[in-house]
């Protein structure tokens, strides 16, 4: 394992950010850690870089315990969320900074800076100073600087946050190909689930200072192990509805089912599991269209169904002929129901096939 963390705990006053966190990042993988703001992503990276000390627990890099090693002696490349480019140095000097500190000869520094600047397409900016750069250019400079650290482990703290969409898409591709070229381990944090799905090989979902699910990105998306994992990963956001029992019948949001696993308190439905249908049956509900978002290739429809908000993703653009304010009937794919425990939030043994309650 490239990075491994055991029992890592960090509190600020009474606020426990990380509580006995365990995780492992495979060598040479592009691992994305996805979690909402305040889930402890940045704190974890800061602990790994050595900018802060943990209250308890241990960390190893490439099998070497670094828990009490000084930041300067840890071999990790770090791209902070804030660019932190030195305003008194040129872009060139900023990028070459890690090598300069490592006392490399200037010819080698120049060569590596040219390489990094080339990869990130900022060669034409090398002689400028940071205050002459746009946000995206600053970000690419910061990434270039992070990459010049002589190591095979790189930590990137939400480096694309706040950039415009087009630039983000391009940088996502660039970062992935850089990682493949370097054959290095990348641990990348983001709060944007679309970014996580686009970039990840391995995905970890962090919530409230604990990893609630990890695995191949496809598995995490297809079979969320925890209610929060389902909510946090995926765009548009998954529908998570309360499960109520009324005698034998089960009311899962607006849908009436014949059964649900013992202890199920929530049911999750991916937006693409919903469809507009003509014929009403037990797995359908009446709903009113509140808002339609055109995304080009797909259409996100926000519905109100018997007091429950539903999000539906439809392929195609505007092809469904619905308009805001329309009353429609929405049917759900019976294999799509995912049940979660009320106390732990863990996924319950899947009833792969859910039937509608008898009418």
């Amino acid at each position, binding site marked *: 394992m490239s990075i491994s963390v055991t029992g890592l705990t960090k509190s600020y006053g009474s606020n426990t950010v990380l509580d006995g966190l365990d995780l492992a990042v495979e060598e040479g993988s592009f691992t994305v850690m996805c979690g909402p703001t305040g889930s402890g992503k940045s704190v974890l990276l800061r602990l790994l870089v050595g900018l802060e000390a943990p209250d308890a627990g241990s960390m190893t890099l490439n099998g070497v315990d670094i828990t009490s090693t000084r930041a300067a002696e840890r071999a990790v490349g*770090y791209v902070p969320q804030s660019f932190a480019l030195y305003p008194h140095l040129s872009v060139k000097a900023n990028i070459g900074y890690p090598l300069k*500190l490592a006392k490399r000869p200037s010819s080698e520094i120049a060569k590596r800076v040219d390489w990094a600047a080339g990869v990130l397409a900022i060669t034409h900016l090398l002689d400028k100073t940071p205050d002459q750069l746009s946000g995206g250019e600053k970000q690419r400079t910061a990434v270039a600087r992070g990459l010049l650290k002589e190591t095979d482990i790189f930590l990137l703290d939400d480096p694309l946050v706040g950039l415009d969409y087009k630039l983000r898409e391009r940088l996502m591709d660039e970062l992935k190909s850089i990682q493949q070229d370097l054959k290095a381990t990348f641990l990348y944090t983001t709060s944007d689930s679309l970014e996580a799905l686009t970039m990840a090989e391995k995905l970890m979902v962090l919530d409230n200072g604990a990893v609630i699910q990890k695995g191949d990105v496809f598995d995490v998306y297809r079979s969320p192990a925890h209610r929060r994992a389902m909510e946090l990963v995926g765009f548009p956001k998954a529908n998570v509805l309360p499960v109520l029992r009324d005698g034998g019948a089960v009311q899962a949001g607006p849908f009436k089912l014949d059964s649900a696993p013992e202890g199920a308190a929530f049911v999750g439905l991916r937006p693409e599991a919903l469809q507009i249908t003509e014929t009403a049956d037990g797995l359908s509900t009446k709903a009113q269209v509140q808002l339609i978002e055109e995304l080009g290739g797909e259409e996100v429809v926000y519905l109100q169904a018997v007091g429950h908000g539903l999000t539906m993703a439809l392929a195609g653009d505007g092809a469904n002929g619905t308009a805001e304010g329309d009353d429609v009937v929405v049917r759900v794919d019976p294999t799509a129901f995912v049940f979660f425990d009320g106390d732990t939030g863990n996924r319950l043994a899947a009833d792969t096939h859910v039937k509608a309650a008898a009418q």
Partner: protein
Amino acid sequence: MSDRFRRGAYYTLLWSVSLLFFTPVAWIIMSSFKTREEILATPPTLIFTPTLDNYIELFTQNQNFLQQLGNSVVMSLSAVVIAVLVSFLAAFCFSRFKPKGTNFLMFILLSIRMLPGPAVILPVFLMFANFGWKDQHIPLVLFYAMFSIPFSVWILKGFLDGVSVRFDETGLANGGSWFHVIFKVVLPQVKPGLIAAFIFNLIFVWNEFLFNFVIGGVQTQNIPYALAVGTYSDGGLNWTFIAALTSIYILPPVAFIYLFQKYLLAGMTFGTVRGEV
């Protein structure tokens, strides 16, 4: 039209006030190029043949002058360099490590400067006399440095608070030592603050008379001391001496302030006005 008039009136007023304040300075500088008779003439002579005699006399006849000038220059510069270096490190600690009671400590620090000199002169004199530090350069320089530190810490803390801790972290994460972070990462970014602190204290030490007079002595006389003591040395008021020495005396601060006025503004606002610097 009325706009132009108002503008004109505005500038006329500003210029007249400025000139009014500048009159004594102009008078003393003009006097330094006059003979004793011309200085004392009524009505004052505005048209006269300038003479350098006063300066020549000051440099050649006055045995103490060069030593006094040297003392002023050397003691001011060394005291201020020490003060700014110490203050920078102290302000860095206050700004970055925020020890418990930082605000209170900062207040205590500044309160040293709230005391008027005469309030502390007696104990300081007794201390200097008993330790045998009277009339010695190094103790006096250190005393001036001590007196300059509080204000410098305040100025520099304002500037350092404006430099994001993220810069420090980038330095540390890339293998830099604290020494590297302090002097190579942070210091270049607070240059305006350093210059502001430098000039403020330079002016203070350059103008310092009381402590030089009481805890200094023959060896450490500076220009304010020379001015005060030399004025009556001939019996009457020695106007040619006063005029020539004053003209030389005001030259360095005026030059510094003119060259670095934008930093001075930033310094007076403790680094909160940053845009212009």
